[in-house]
């Protein structure tokens, strides 16, 4: 865990989350969805966040945008964002409705969601939705905004952008809607794009199209991307660095090569082994992780992964929460036995 004294962010840093906690008050009690998440994003890089459902990956991302539900309590933690070298913003200190926060949303930070059909307004044309964003943040007139909308639709490779600008979301296919959504998110040249499972609802060939598009846009515009997914294949394809989350905690971070070829946390290792890889000699059985993700009211003592961990040592793992062990390079692992586990062939 980092010290509480606030250190200045290194120059390449765009966003830094430090010990972020998000809880929800429910009828059944308090759900601690995010428990001390720290990660950072550098300028122009793609950070992949992987984890199973309920790991808190989306909630953390939404807390960056202050888009959490009303029963959410942002209990602790600091989120710092630096869109321009000279201006550092402490997002955690802003209120969700403040002028600064509204300027960030859609301005310096764009977001795309899993289901473009529900994220886009069904009663406004694609063009209108983009124009409003551009007019709000850029203060330009209608004509200029429309021109910008057409230009953006062309950039995301929608066919016939001059016609598409007047179409409604229901007239487009899933892949085209996701392209329109990307155009909307990028309309004000954000320095950070948060992509929350943007390809999960799409077919593989459409997914491939969208991934290629995001990669080329990222190269062209140079924004950083937080790419949230449960699909390790997608992460391997797009991310520079990866954070693996389990039960509201980051259990491991590292470069994409570290995570895939030298995973340090037992959870990362087990997950990677439970995915069938294409073109591999067929195994008789898939490796599994015993048990299931505990429900948020019964979070295990000690290391949260210990009841399902093949390497858990009673007396240590079920008693004491592990701290983060850092390795040379950028890899860090939240495990008592990080670096001491037997090497495994991946």
């Amino acid at each position, binding site marked *: 865990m980092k010290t509480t004294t606030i250190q200045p962010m290194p120059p390449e840093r765009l966003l830094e989350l430090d010990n972020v906690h998000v809880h929800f008050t429910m009828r059944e009690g308090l759900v601690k969805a995010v428990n001390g998440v720290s990660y950072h994003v550098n300028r122009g890089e793609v950070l992949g966040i992987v984890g199973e459902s309920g790991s808190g990956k989306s909630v953390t991302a939404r807390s960056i945008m202050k888009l959490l539900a009303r029963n959410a309590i942002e209990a602790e933690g600091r989120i710092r964002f630096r869109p321009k070298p000279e201006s550092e913003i402490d997002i955690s200190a802003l209120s969700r409705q403040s002028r600064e926060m509204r300027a960030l949303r859609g301005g310096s930070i764009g977001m795309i969601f899993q289901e473009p059909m529900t994220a886009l307004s069904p009663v406004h044309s694609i063009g209108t939705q983009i124009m409003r964003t551009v007019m709000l943040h850029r203060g330009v007139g209608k004509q200029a905004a429309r021109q910008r909308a057409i230009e953006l639709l062309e950039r995301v490779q929608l066919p016939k952008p001059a016609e598409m600008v007047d179409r409604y979301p229901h007239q487009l296919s899933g892949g085209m809607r996701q392209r329109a959504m990307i155009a909307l998110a990028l309309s004000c040249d954000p320095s950070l794009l948060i992509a929350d499972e943007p390809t999960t609802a799409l077919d593989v060939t*459409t997914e*491939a199209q969208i991934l290629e598009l995001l990669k080329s846009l990222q190269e062209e515009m140079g924004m950083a991307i937080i790419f949230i997914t449960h699909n390790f294949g997608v992460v391997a394809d797009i991310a520079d660095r990866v954070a693996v989350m389990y039960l509201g905690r980051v259990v491991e971070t590292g470069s994409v090569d570290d995570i895939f070829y030298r995973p340090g946390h037992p959870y990362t290792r087990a997950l990677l082994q439970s995915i069938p890889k294409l073109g591999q000699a067929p*195994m008789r059985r898939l490796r*599994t992780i015993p048990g299931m*993700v505990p429900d948020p009211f019964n979070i295990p003592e000690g290391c949260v992964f210990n009841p399902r961990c093949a390497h858990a040592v009673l007396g240590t793992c079920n008693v004491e929460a592990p701290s983060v062990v850092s390795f040379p390079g950028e890899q860090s692992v939240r495990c008592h036995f990080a670096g001491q586990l037997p090497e495994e062939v991946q």
Partner: protein
Amino acid sequence: MSQIMNSSEQPLAGNVLADDALISVSGLRKYFPVTRGWMQRKVGEVRAVDDITFDIKRGETFGLVGESGSGKSTVARLILRAYSLTGGSVHFRKADGNVVDLSRLGDREMRPIRREMQMIFQDPYSSLNPRMTLLELVGEPMVIHGVGSQGEIRDRVAELLSLVGLRPEYVLRYPHAFSGGQRQRIGIARALALNPSFIAADEAVSALDVSVAAQNINLMQDLQEKFGLTYLFITHDLGMVEHISDRIGVMYVGRLVEVGDTAEIFNKPLHPYTEALLSAVPQPDPRRRSSGKRVVLKGEIADPANPPSGCYFHPRCRYATDLCRTDTPQLRPVAGRSVRCHYAEELDLTGVGA
């Protein structure tokens, strides 16, 4: 040996099923009408499934892959006669060894055969009645078919639950008390209740998390070994289908474009759509990161209500010629497989060999 029959010739029942086959589907068609106005005037039709022919061998897992709207779920529903057929036949070898053409049976005659064919659904949340206990849910097939007394049903349900790895004490609980993976197991237990020989699993693990999906896939394979089950496994997850299937069929806009041995197809596809599909799958291996090698298809999946001329894939195919725009290729045997492409012999396509 997979027999490919031209759909125009309808051979007599009896010699239609190869010795090792459990199910033989031939020339299967399902057209849904497109209607307009308050008179429900028919203005067109959607060819959801068009001229599908393949065999499923006894004890094997046949994988059906394709993107949404390709008609793979409709094929499963047609085999189980959940939909009526527009055309074609489905021959099924019953437990007593007799072969029947399901497409010619009425609902009453179909009923006893339903005991031998079951289905597992994708969404474990909507496919289980929330007001029924596990006893009622898993026991329902037995009640419907009048098998066993109440006590026998109770014993059988307990046995089925432990088979799928759930505690038999849970019989009086409701589905809401279980996680997605456990609910899927309840669906599996229910499908097994009447000792079927054939189970169609429609995206059975697609809604589950990676680690839970792996548990359920292993369970399905164990059950297959134990009871000699034959699976039709429908999915869009190519990694999973490669792992579980002996043979696969690839569908595109209601038609099969390639059928054959899984390893052979993955190693060296013969249809350009199969090649594009395989290359689109993001691999959990950063070194294989596509640096321009990936075949990114242009455009969108064709509309089955208004399909392109000739080969349905030609507008997106990088090998297409004039012939592909005008002539519809037939599913024909090529190198031990069936392929629907004019150039199956000439093209040198890339698979995902390690």
